[in-house]
């Protein structure tokens, strides 16, 4: 069992857990992930590290409530315990020489932040491009501002409720035109990563994406998380989750992500029905 030390709520549906896991905290790197099984009947779900502290022995992950497991996790409080937490898993993000643009979309900002912070800490110049559908869904702004100055932070919202109206590719394109970045890292919904890749490719700037396919074991044993990169099949859990974004088959990733939508709906419905029964 893994104890929840702290629970933070960022918005209606977005939460952060700080989990007691001393060994994991000692070995975690930016870009890696952990897998959670909430309880004995639970499924295994991957979450990227949002933060970790080897001295204090904890790791953090951020999640958005989208289905049964995340809905159930959102009811857990500090002091409760999670059945299983496994990690660190996956390859750490490779941080090449030069200036970086780090793009995070929606809950992907939670994954982008440790990468941006790590890049900054190792002497890179870092631009953060933070995208969200609307102001309330913009995560970790304070954290990003604590490591980067205002000139290096670019915020976009789809509805224009905060920052620049539009999507992340606009500030990315400006940075690329002005030759302010040598590398791009992106993480977020598939369309965002796909169009970021097309934009970076136009300027011959390397771009890596942190992919988020469905996983079961997370250790290279089942192949559920396979993705097509440059015409080759790769297992995101052991070969990734970071890949050259210009080579990813986005349609394939999207189709595989959607493979269990019906079952996910059934599971959530069954869970909500049992919860209602308790409240009655």
């Amino acid at each position, binding site marked *: 069992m893994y104890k929840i030390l702290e629970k933070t709520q960022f918005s209606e549906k977005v939460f952060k857990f700080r989990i007691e896991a001393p060994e994991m905290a000692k070995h975690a790197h930016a870009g890696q992930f952990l897998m959670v099984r909430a309880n004995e009947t639970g499924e295994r779900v991957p979450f990227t590290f949002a933060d970790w502290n080897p001295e204090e022995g904890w790791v953090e992950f951020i999640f958005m409530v989208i289905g049964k497991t995340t809905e159930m996790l959102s009811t857990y409080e500090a002091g409760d315990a999670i059945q299983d937490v*496994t990690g660190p898993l996956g390859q750490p993000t490779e941080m090449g020489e030069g200036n970086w643009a780090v793009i995070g979309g929606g809950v992907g900002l939670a994954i982008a932040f440790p990468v941006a912070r790590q890049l900054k800490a190792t002497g890179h110049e870092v631009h953060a491009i933070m995208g969200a559908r609307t102001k309330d869904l913009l995560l970790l702004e304070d954290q990003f501002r604590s490591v980067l100055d205002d000139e290096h932070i670019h915020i976009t919202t789809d509805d224009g409720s905060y920052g620049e109206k539009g999507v992340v590719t606009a500030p990315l394109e400006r940075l690329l035109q002005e030759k302010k970045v040598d590398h791009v890292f992106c993480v977020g919904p598939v369309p965002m990563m796909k169009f970021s890749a097309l934009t970076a490719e136009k300027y011959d700037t390397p771009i890596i994406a942190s992919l988020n396919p469905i996983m079961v074991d997370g250790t290279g044993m*089942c192949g559920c998380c396979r993705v097509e990169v440059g015409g080759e099949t790769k297992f995101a859990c052991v070969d990734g989750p970071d890949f050259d974004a210009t080579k990813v088959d986005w349609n394939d990733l999207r189709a595989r992500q959607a493979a269990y939508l019906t079952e996910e709906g059934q599971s959530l419905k069954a869970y909500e029905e049992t919860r209602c029964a308790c409240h009655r």
Partner: protein
Amino acid sequence: MPQVNGRYIPNVKAPRTADNEEPADVRAKDFRPVDKGFTKEMAIAEANRCLDCKNPLCVQGCPVNINIPRFIEAIRAEEFGRGLDIIHEASMLPAVCGRVCPQENQCEGVCVMGKRSEPVAIGQLERFLGDQPELASETKVAPRNGKKVAVVGSGPSGIACAGELARNGFDVTVFEAFFTGGGVLVYGIPEFRLPKAVVKREIDGLKDLGVKFEYNSVVGRITDADELFEKGFDAIYIATGAGLPKLLNIPGENLPNVFFANEYLTRVNLMKANNFPEYDTPTKHGKNVIVFGGGNVAMDAVRTAKRLGAERAIIAYRRTEEEMPARRAELHHAKAEGVEVMPLVSPLEFIAGEDGTVCAVRVQKMELGEPDDSGRRRPVPIEGAIEEIPCDVAISAIGTNANPFAKMIGDIKLNKWGYIEADDEGRTSDPRIWAGGDIVTGAATVILAMGAGKTAAASITKHLG
């Protein structure tokens, strides 16, 4: 016991005792064990068929050389506890091995009775004793020797090694990536062939010997060899297995509802997707399921598909039934349960339906040509003989590769396929690290993996004990 003047006279005319099975139409609907095992009367009758050979070939046929005639003699004498103790001298997992060993290629394959009529049902007799663990004498444990060993992986090889080392007085910790122990015994082999309660009982037995288990521990990521040695471990045994699925490398392989057998089986066996939504992990219940492969994993997958409601479940194999590496018993079980065997086909392409998931597979029909290096006749494509088979779930069970974490554990020599190089004792290029099981040999059997664990434990004991 049939005797003349105090001498045992085997009942050579008796036919081999038939397995005690649930009828196929009943069992194909759920995940309960197919084979209920021998009753006491059945076990004794079968034990009476053993010739009690002076030079028993069966013992040599067993990879861990269990003293088979002696434990069968104990069954005849109805001294079941003594029989179990005899097995335990060689193997701590009789309830598992009695169920999953390919006995026809091992002990039973060389049984002299097999030449006259049918071999003695050694596996069933071993299982009969293994299922009564409470009868065994308390395991003798050597005095603690103050040495610590880390075992990486809790599959059959890791378990066997850990058990031996604990009996030899070592302080043993098993590191397991999953949340529960057993490796392929829990994620791969289905409940209807090996009840998980049996695996749990074997693991609990190790805990009673003082073995510690660290679950959710991916060695190579959360720690590595250097760190384990710094923490005071004197030796490491690597038994991570060969779990990485082999790709077919054909178009459409990544379509939704095309599975590797490992994923399909893990969802059901480990995550209990057959009980969704009571358990959170879903799986796909195909009406038309096709499985490519001819080994035990393919049989497990196709029989699982049948139990999840498949109306048509096909085993498609590029050679013929004769060449299938699966246990004969499992092939027979599968066919009895209504599985269709489609020999001499090889997949060419998976085709997507309108909803984007797999709807059919194009296969190349084959014929058997000249024998290849393995002595088996090589399947060769029949030109132009291509067929399209409808399917809504397709499963690839063509084999696995070395576990990708083996190379991250420590600086040890691997061969070109990523398997660890180890000598007959299981010693690797690092004198403090041993390895065995599938991560050395490639995918093999439970009992061979156990044998490697035992051998390595003996070697570790010799060098450190």
